[in-house]
């Protein structure tokens, strides 16, 4: 188990380095090849020439690439100082960048917004896991029945609907039309019930989309597993059907679902851009939209970085959970 853990941790560390390199390339190398003035895109297109030159020096854009990469890494792990002449800005670790436009470090803004997104992602995940997996299992057990067909049609519609459309629709119906829910975000510290009220529509809309995907995957996996020999053996032993399904079949069905959950949760924690935009939730995703509108590139970079980190951590957790669920994993 310990060897497995160490191996996983090492793999995650390597992945982290690769991901940081990829993100660096997206923001600093690819635009350069495409002929973009990077300094200009970091301050916004309305900036005066002097400040563009200042940013060019602060970011070290005239330095060789390997120096820039080193500065980028160093910033994340040890902090860095942006200086141009007498103009010096310090960005302490973890330095996820500095917005020259709004003159603030990116990291504190991200941590401020993080709880909103975390709440959204976790709440929705609970809903979609419960309903999606249950619907999928029922469909698989009653294959071809009216329930199965109905559930799969709903699931197919679910994956075909853009979330910003179902979100707007639910706002129009439940908030504006029926006036059941007041659609505004209240921090959990101010009022717990107010927070619940503001989150319920985003949770349901987001969970509907994912529940649809999970139901489809659960059904397919369950059907495959029910055809396996060990299920026949379990039945032949005379085990009750509840035990065969609930214990033997479910355990294998959960493995691919856990993988998906790790990725999806990681990606969502980093920013449910579309959901947060639709419901005006002040999370990381909404910051991305603000940054697109204000041409404030460092925030986009910051969110991409924090999301990748969240995905890495989520995958690591899933890998460890695997070893707990499935003893074969530890040995391989």
């Amino acid at each position, binding site marked *: 188990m310990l060897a497995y853990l160490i191996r996983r941790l090492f793999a995650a560390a390597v992945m982290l380095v690769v991901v940081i390199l990829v993100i660096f390339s997206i923001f600093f190398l690819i635009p350069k090849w495409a002929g973009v003035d990077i300094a200009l895109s970091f301050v916004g297109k309305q900036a005066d020439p002097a400040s563009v030159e200042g940013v060019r020096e602060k970011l070290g854009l005239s330095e060789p690439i390997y120096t820039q990469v080193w500065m980028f890494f160093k910033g994340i792990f040890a902090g860095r100082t942006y200086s141009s002449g007498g103009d010096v800005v310090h960005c302490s670790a973890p330095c996820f960048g500095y917005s020259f436009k709004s003159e603030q470090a990116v990291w504190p803004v991200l941590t401020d917004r993080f709880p909103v997104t975390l709440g959204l992602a976790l709440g929705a995940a609970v809903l979609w896991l419960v309903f999606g997996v249950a619907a999928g299992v029922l469909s698989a057990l009653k294959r071809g029945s009216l329930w199965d067909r109905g559930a799969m049609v709903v699931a197919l519609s679910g994956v075909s609907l853009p979330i910003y459309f179902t979100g707007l629709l639910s*706002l129009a119906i439940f908030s504006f039309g029926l006036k059941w829910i007041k659609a505004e975000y209240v921090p959990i510290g101010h009022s717990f019930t107010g927070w619940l009220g503001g989150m319920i529509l985003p949770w349901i809309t987001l969970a509907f989309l994912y529940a649809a995907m999970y139901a489809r995957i659960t059904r397919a996996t369950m059907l495959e597993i029910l055809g396996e020999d060990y299920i026949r053996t379990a039945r032949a032993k005379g085990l009750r059907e509840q035990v065969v399904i609930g214990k033997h079949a479910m355990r294998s069905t959960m493995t691919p679902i856990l993988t998906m959950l790790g990725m999806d949760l990681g990606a969502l924690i980093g920013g449910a851009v579309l959901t947060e935009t639709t419901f005006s939730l002040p999370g990381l995703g909404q910051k991305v939209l603000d940054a697109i509108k204000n041409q404030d*590139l460092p925030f*986009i970079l910051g969110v991409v970085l924090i999301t990748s980190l969240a995905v890495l951590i989520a995958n690591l957790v899933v890998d460890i959970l695997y070893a707990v669920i499935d003893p074969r994993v530890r040995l391989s």
Partner: protein
Amino acid sequence: MTAPLREPAADAAPSAAEEAAEVSADAKAVQGRSLGRIAWERLKRDKLALTGGIVVLVLVLVAVLAPVITNLVGQDPDAYHEDMIDALFGTPKGSLGGISGDHLLGVEPVNGRDIFARIVYGSQISLLVGFLSALVAVVLGTVLGILAGFFGGWVDSVISRVMDGLLAFPQLLFIIALVTVMPNELLGLTGTGVRVFVMILVIGFFGWPYIGRVVRSQTLSMREREYVEASRSLGAGRLYILFKELLPNLVAPIIVYTTMMIPTNILTEAALSFLGVGVKPPTASWGQMLSNAIDYYDSDPMYMVIPGVAIFITVLAFNLFGDGVRDALDPKGSR
């Protein structure tokens, strides 16, 4: 797969002429059907998939004939109709967002552009990006998938790692980042042209691992089959085996994954345009219409419902068709 098992025996034994005659009589009674034929007959029986296929066909026609259709109803997607707008609220006059004989789906708030014409033109962007990005993904995925599966070793390790990495990371965010850092002029294109070009490339780039993974695993299992060995023993070169023996057998899974990828790509394009990093105004796109509709969801709900339903119908049609194609091409399928 379902190879005719009796045929070689009949060929190999000239002495058993009677048996051969029997076999051919048998074959007549059963009638041999090609795999493609079987798939097509299965697909024909699947009403939902067929409906999806017809809708897809109609959508393609609408996109191709957009100028003809809008001329026919006498509407221009960019023309303002301020006389249709309530000056006080900025919303369309009349009920249901101004739906009338002239404006089949009503008009937009504030400037009064005809929604029907904009939906028709919007289908061009959706389908163009949807299809071409899938094409990029298929080409990349097939080439790299075959390379990984056929050569194995370190080639396989590198390609597989890259695929895992690409699949694990939040694609929408990376696509947003890549589209935002791109310049406004590229390779002689400007404005919307650049955005569409970049979207096609980037969405395709993030999509290829889905195809690559399947192609790789199929290639891996097929290169050990007898027929490949037979071909090799006859002196066939690597390229011959790749293109003449392996590729034809990969067509089915590639078709299935492509049809399933197009709707996802259409949704991604709509999402990017919704977020303001997709096509630039005044070019019509469904995602952008929805993002404009946010401000009017209470006063003019039809403005949001129409592009939303357009996206829904398109994506659902592709999904239904894709599911049908998958079931039809699956040799294990019982339907």
